C-alpha cells in the first residue's frame, strides 16, 4: 500500500456524488467586489449545476441559481428563516462528510507517518475511534432531521486542504484548522438546537464538540513537538494553518465579524490550546473576505440573471 493518497482516491459507496473543489477555492479567495463575485459564479455555473443534479441541492439551485451556496453560507442559521430545515440538513450533511474525511485524515496519518512518535500514533488512533463515532452520530442526526446520506454532493476540499505530507502541517491543517472550524460550527449548531428545543441534537453535538476540543489539543501539542527547535518549520506550519483557516472561512462566513454566519468559538478554542494571539490572527484572516452587503448584492444579481435566463428573457444588464 502506497503512502499518501490524492483526495479523488477517497472511496465512497454509490450514494455519494462528488463536487469539484474549485468552487471552494473560489469562495476562499473572493474579493470585496460585487462584479468579480458575479463573474466568478457565472463562470462556474455549469459545473455547479452539474454537481447538484439529482441531489436535494437541485431545489436550492433552482430557487437561487448558482449562488445558492452564497445564500446558504452567508446567512446565519435561524429557525424562522426561509428553507431553514433544508439549510440545516445541508449543513448537517456537510458536517457528516467532513467527519468522514476527518476519520480518513487521522487514519491515513497512521499509515503515512510510520516513524512518528508512539504517542502521536496513540492520539491519531484515538481520533479514528472518535471520528468514526462522529460519522455515526451525524448519520443519525441527518435521519433525525429527515435527511439522508448522499442527498447533497460531497466536496473533498477538506481532505485536500488539510492532508499535507509533512506531519506538523498535517496536524496543523487537520487538527487545528479543520477541527477548529468544527468547534465554531458545533457551537453554532448547539445554539440552534437550544433555540428550537431539539434536545437530541443539542446533547449529541455537545459531546462531539467535547471530542473536537481534545483533537485540537492534540494538534496544538504535536505542532509544538514536531517543530521544536526549528523556528522556520514552525513558521511554515503556521502559514499553512493560516491558509487552511482562510479557506475554511468561506469568504468571511465563518469569522469574528458581526455579520458572520458562523462566529468563532473563542472560549472553546482557548480550552483547546489556541492562544489569544492566534485567535486574533484567525479573526483577521477570516475577516478578509467580502462584506455581507457585497455577497447579498452579488447573490441577488445572480439569482435575477439565472431566473431571467430560465424564462428565456436573457440576462438583465
Amino acid at each position, binding site marked *: 500500500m502506497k503512502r499518501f493518497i490524492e483526495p479523488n482516491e477517497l472511496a465512497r459507496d454509490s450514494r455519494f456524488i462528488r463536487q469539484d473543489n474549485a468552487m471552494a477555492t473560489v469562495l476562499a479567495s473572493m474579493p470585496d467586489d460585487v462584479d468579480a463575485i458575479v463573474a466568478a459564479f457565472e463562470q462556474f455555473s455549469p459545473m455547479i449545476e452539474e454537481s447538484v443534479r439529482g441531489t436535494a441541492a437541485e431545489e436550492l439551485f433552482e430557487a437561487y441559481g448558482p449562488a445558492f451556496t452564497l445564500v446558504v453560507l452567508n446567512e446565519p442559521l435561524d429557525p424562522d428563516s426561509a428553507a431553514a430545515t433544508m439549510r440545516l440538513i445541508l449543513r448537517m450533511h456537510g458536517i457528516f462528510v467532513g467527519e468522514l474525511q476527518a476519520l480518513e485524515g487521522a*487514519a491515513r496519518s*497512521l499509515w503515512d507517518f510510520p516513524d512518528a512518535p508512539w504517542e502521536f500514533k496513540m492520539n491519531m488512533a484515538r481520533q479514528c475511534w472518535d471520528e*468514526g463515532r462522529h460519522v455515526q452520530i451525524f448519520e443519525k442526526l441527518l435521519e433525525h432531521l429527515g435527511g439522508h446520506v448522499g442527498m447533497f454532493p460531497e466536496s473533498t476540499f477538506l481532505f485536500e486542504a488539510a492532508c499535507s505530507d509533512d506531519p506538523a502541517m498535517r496536524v496543523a491543517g487537520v487538527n487545528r484548522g479543520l477541527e477548529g472550524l468544527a468547534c465554531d460550527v458545533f457551537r453554532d449548531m448547539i445554539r440552534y438546537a437550544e433555540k428550537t428545543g431539539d434536545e437530541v441534537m443539542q446533547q449529541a453535538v455537545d459531546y462531539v464538540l467535547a471530542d473536537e476540543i481534545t483533537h485540537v489539543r492534540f494538534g496544538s501539542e504535536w505542532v509544538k513537538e514536531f517543530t521544536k527547535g526549528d523556528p522556520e518549520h514552525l513558521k511554515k506550519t503556521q502559514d499553512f494553518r493560516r491558509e487552511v483557516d482562510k479557506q475554511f472561512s468561506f469568504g468571511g462566513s465563518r469569522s469574528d465579524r458581526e455579520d458572520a454566519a458562523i462566529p468563532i468559538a473563542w472560549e472553546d478554542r482557548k480550552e483547546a490550546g489556541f492562544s489569544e494571539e492566534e485567535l486574533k490572527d484567525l479573526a483577521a484572516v477570516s475577516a478578509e473576505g467580502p462584506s455581507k452587503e457585497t455577497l447579498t448584492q452579488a447573490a441577488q444579481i445572480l439569482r435575477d440573471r439565472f431566473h431571467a435566463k430560465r424564462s428565456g428573457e436573457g440576462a438583465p444588464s
Partner: protein
Amino acid sequence: MSERMYPGMSPDERTTFAPYSAFDIPADLRQLHGRYDVASVAKRVRNFRYAEEWMMMIMGGWVATVPEVPVKTGIGKVIWEGAQAADEFGKRLPELRCGRKAVEASEASNDGFASFVQAVAEPETPDLTIEKLVGIFDVLKPHMVEIYETTMRETDQISDAPTIEILETVVRKTRRHIAWGQEVLDRLCDTEALRERRRARADELSERLAASGGVTGTLASDRGQLN
C-alpha cells in the same frame, strides 16, 4: 496463654493465628515454573507489539480506501483498541528488564513474518475490501488469539501474571474484533464467487503465516507442545 497478636523473639512467642499457605484461601492450584523465562516473554511481548502496531497502521491506511461506511467506522474502533493493546505490551517491556526506553520496542519474529505482514497490507483499491478484511479478521487476528491463549496457558501463572492480565483484556477485545470482521465478511461475500475469493485469500495468507512460524516464529513448536 492469652491471645498473642505479634511474634516475639523466641519460639514460645509465636502468634496464635492458624498457619496457612499462600495458596490456601481460596484454594489455588497454580504452580511455579512456566515454559518461558523472563527473556523469552520479553521477546514474545515485543513480537505481539509488532503485530498489533502494524495491524493498526495498515487499517489506518485502509479507512480511506474502503467504500463501505460501516467498515470505515468499525475499523476506527478496532484501530484504537489495537493501539491500546500495543501500548499495554510496550508498558510491560521495562518490567521485563528491557530498559525504560523499551516501551516503543516492536520486533518481528523473523523476516518471514515481516514479509507476511506486508502481504496483508498489499490490497489497496476500493474493490478489494474482502481481501483487506480477510488478512486481518480471518487470518492474523485469529492467529493472534491462538498464540495469546497459548502464552497465557504456558507462561508462569504466578511470576508472569502481569503479562497474563494484559493478554486477558487483549484476547477479549480481539475476539470481539474477529466476530465483527467476520460478520462484515459474511455479509459482503454473498455469492459463491465472493466466498471463493475470501477462501482463496485466506488460504494464501495462512500458508505464508505458517511458513513464517507465526507472530513469535515458533508456531510449529507451540502446536507440537499442545499435542
